């Protein structure tokens, strides 16, 4: 992965009175048109102290059964890239504020034309152990991405096309 995508490593909060060696934790926040490489991304957020990674991957559904059943031929994603990557970093900061055992965080949204079964989004959180909230952290990450990160998708069906409507919830944006 291009190192320019590896943003400001964040240090865990230690009491300032303590003289400790500050560890650096990698954060990846990325809008990309390239394939999402899970091996590579997880490796980038795995430290020598890491024992667990909880990862969420979202895919394009070709067949949807719930709510409004329909078929999807492909989705076209678009992003307001600089703001989207800033908002992804905000999501990472929020995760670290809530789960202080989280080490590395990768948040990646792929854009462009994407076909069924293709991973479109990835959230990976690492931590020393699996029992201190790393699953909740990843879940929070994808929920929050879908609230505040400026990305949109247009759905192309066999005979139709339409923008997917996000929920209008201004209170979650602040």
């Amino acid at each position, binding site marked *: 992965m291009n190192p320019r995508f590896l943003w400001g490593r964040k240090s865990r909060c230690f009491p300032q009175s303590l003289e400790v060696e500050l560890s650096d934790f990698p954060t990846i926040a990325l809008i990309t048109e390239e394939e999402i490489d899970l091996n590579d991304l997880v490796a980038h957020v795995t430290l020598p102290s890491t024992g667990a990674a909880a990862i969420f991957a979202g895919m394009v559904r070709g067949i949807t059964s719930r709510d409004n059943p329909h078929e999807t031929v492909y989705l076209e994603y678009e992003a307001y890239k600089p703001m989207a990557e800033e908002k992804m970093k905000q999501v990472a900061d929020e995760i670290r504020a809530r789960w202080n055992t989280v080490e590395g965080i990768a948040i990646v949204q792929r854009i462009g034309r994407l076909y069924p079964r293709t991973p479109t989004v990835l959230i990976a959180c690492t931590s020393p152990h699996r029992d201190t909230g790393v699953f909740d952290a990843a879940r929070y990450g994808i929920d929050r991405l879908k609230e505040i990160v400026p990305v*949109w998708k*247009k759905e192309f069906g066999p005979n139709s096309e339409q923008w997917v409507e996000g929920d209008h919830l201004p209170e979650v944006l602040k």
Partner: protein
Amino acid sequence: MKNITVFFFATLRERAGMKFTHLEIPADATVANLKTILGQKFLSLNGLVESSLVAINQEYAFDESQIPVGAEIALFPPVSGG
């Protein structure tokens, strides 16, 4: 008066027929004022611009927010990524 740039995304980009535009707006204009101005200038955005989300310099802004000189404004529908 002050100069700003307005970017459009998703439905708003399609309806406006452009990705961005440069505008001159009153010095004391708020986001609410800007929406009115855009609704008048781009008739195709009528009925859509009022409910759209707004960002000023890549941070969410709301109707009462003041717009700084040279601001990068973005208008877009509720997000739907993932």
